[in-house]
């Protein structure tokens, strides 16, 4: 039983080590080393890592490039935001509105009644269900329409991108129903629990980190099953799989739905931690950024993409503070460089170079030990994030 768990959910011994190191980094090192503001920022980055993990399943293994994962991130995020907004819009706190009890932006847009599709989001249970079911349903509809007709490759990528555009336009245009370009803001409590307090931010960070680890383990289970091998087989020789008696489209639909749900969980956690949801998080640019996170981390590595996401986002924050205009060019250049020279991203670099140095590790402790403890500790805290990023993108 234990063996089964290690093999299928952690990916063998090597995978177990990699996931343990990731857990150590995000559950122990970050919370200890970073102040709450920075930790909250990392929590935000980690919500994007959900989308990147989904892309490992869909793009890395399934060979299906979606440029619209932001759509599902947004669906999850908006579902959560709608619930929180309704809770924040109780009649007392909205007493000055023409129609008290409805979200403020509706009132500004002269809506006098809660739209019908908002009503179910008064229930927390429904909201949680919607975060999982809505993106799956939406992905299922797109998947059936595309994959049953054997639309794939570039066409699929373009269509998913178009869907991201359409959804953005729709949300921006229907301001009264959606909050428009500003999104849904001013979110306060979750079932009465104030999510803006320091303790809430800590708790949400840990929930988010644990959910991410759980999602990675579930994804690992999928990839180590026969279905995982079939995905690789389909990517290589789709016709052969079809003529081996498999309905290829069903497998593509499944993995698309799963990646959508994973992405949506990230979106919901984003809303909770950052406190708003807006169309700028589900359009073309964030969708492509998610693909870049996956590419840089290594699209065949569930754990590598988490490091990729963190690295790019640290870079984005740091770099764009200094050279705001150059960041997009830098990221574009990085993406091209990774695709050209390191198609398997950080994880690929790790597997190719660093793991070959493994034999050195036998000698390393002997060299390192004489160093004073204080010295290594200060090193550890400053270099923890960077060296771990580069080194532990293990286990594809």
């Amino acid at each position: 039983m234990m063996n089964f768990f290690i093999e299928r959910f952690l990916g063998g011994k090597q995978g177990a080590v990699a996931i343990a190191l990731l857990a150590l980094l995000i559950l122990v090192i970050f919370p200890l080393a970073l102040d709450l503001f920075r930790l909250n920022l990392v929590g935000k980055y980690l919500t994007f890592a959900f989308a990147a993990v989904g892309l490992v399943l869909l793009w890395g293994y399934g060979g299906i490039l979606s440029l619209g994962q932001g759509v599902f991130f947004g669906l999850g995020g908006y579902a959560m935001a709608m619930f929180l907004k309704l809770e924040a819009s109780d009649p007392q706190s909205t007493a000055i509105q023409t129609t008290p009890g409805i979200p403020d932006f509706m009132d500004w847009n002269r809506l006098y009644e809660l739209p019908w599709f908002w009503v179910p989001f008064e229930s927390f249970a429904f909201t949680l269900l919607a975060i999982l079911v809505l993106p799956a349903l939406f992905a299922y509809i797109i998947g059936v329409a595309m994959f049953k007709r054997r639309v794939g490759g570039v066409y699929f990528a373009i269509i998913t991108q178009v869907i991201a555009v359409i959804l953005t336009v729709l949300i921006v245009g229907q301001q009264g129903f959606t909050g428009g370009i500003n999104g849904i803001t001013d979110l306060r409590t979750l079932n009465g629990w104030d999510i803006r307090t320091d303790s809430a931010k800590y708790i949400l960070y840990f929930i988010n980190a644990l959910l991410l680890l759980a999602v990675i383990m579930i994804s690992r289970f999928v990839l180590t099953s026969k279905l995982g091998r079939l995905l690789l087989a389909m990517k290589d020789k789709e016709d052969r799989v079809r003529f081996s008696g498999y309905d290829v489209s069903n497998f593509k639909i499944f993995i698309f739905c799963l990646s959508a749900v994973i992405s949506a969980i990230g979106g919901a956690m984003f809303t909770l931690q950052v406190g708003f949801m807006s169309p700028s998080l589900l359009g073309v640019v964030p969708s492509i950024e998610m693909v870049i996170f996956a590419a840089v981390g290594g699209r065949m590595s569930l754990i590598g993409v988490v490091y990729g996401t963190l690295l790019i986002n640290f870079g984005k924050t740091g770099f764009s503070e200094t050279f705001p205009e150059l960041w997009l060019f830098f990221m574009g250049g990085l993406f091209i460089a990774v695709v050209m020279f390191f198609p398997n991203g950080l994880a690929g670099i790790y597997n190719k170079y660093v793991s070959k140095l493994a034999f050195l590790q036998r000698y390393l402790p002997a060299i390192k030990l004489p160093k004073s403890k204080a010295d290594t500790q200060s090193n550890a805290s400053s270099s923890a994030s960077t060296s771990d990023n580069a080194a532990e993108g293990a286990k594809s």
Partner: protein
Amino acid sequence: MSTNTDFLLAIEDLTVSFDGFKAVDSLTMYIDKNELRVIIGPNGAGKTTLLDLICGKTKASSGSIQFKNQEITKLVEHQITRVGIGRKFQTPSIYENLTVYQNLEVSYSEGRSVFGSLFFKSTPKLEAMIEEVASDIQLTEFLETQAGVLSHGQKQWLEIGMLLMQEPELLMLDEPVAGMSAKERDETAELLNRLCKNRSVIVIEHDMEFVKKIARKVTVLHQGKILAEGAMEKVQADEKVIEVYLGH
């Protein structure tokens, strides 16, 4: 036309036209149980198209294909595979990124639905079967090897092995010895002769030396029609056949 027969595969009046060009033209052909049939013919005779029609890759314009008295022209590819027809492609079509073992495992006929494959567990029966097939195709020592690094001939065999994992009643092979060495050809001939003991096999082949080693009954296609059919010697002596094909 559609009457019950004892044939495994009954092709009747089958036609497919691509923009008016009839690649297969009112073709009628029957395959018996446990028969090994070789189809020969010059380039463009419609051999590969015929296999495409049977396995569902191409849809027929008219006519019928019955497998065990079940009409299969309306079925889609994976359904045709599931009734018991396996198809090997002309160029070896294997999964380069998987090991030989995984190639064979993925081709096994259980766990074919999404959730079936997600919760699929290997059984002793499956492992025994993989062992058996691997020894049949002489790849026992390569089970843990990445299929991509196999030699061309081994890839051809692996694909035949993958078809065997599907336990088909009808096996269709499109030029199985293309690109093989003389020794590999002999071994493939032996393998095919063993294979047809408990299933029917259709082979498309150009190499006449190879055909002579395996053929009992030969069908000669020419311009989408059957030019001649019968024992190898009889076909070789047929003047029409010599004229269009064997002569040069």
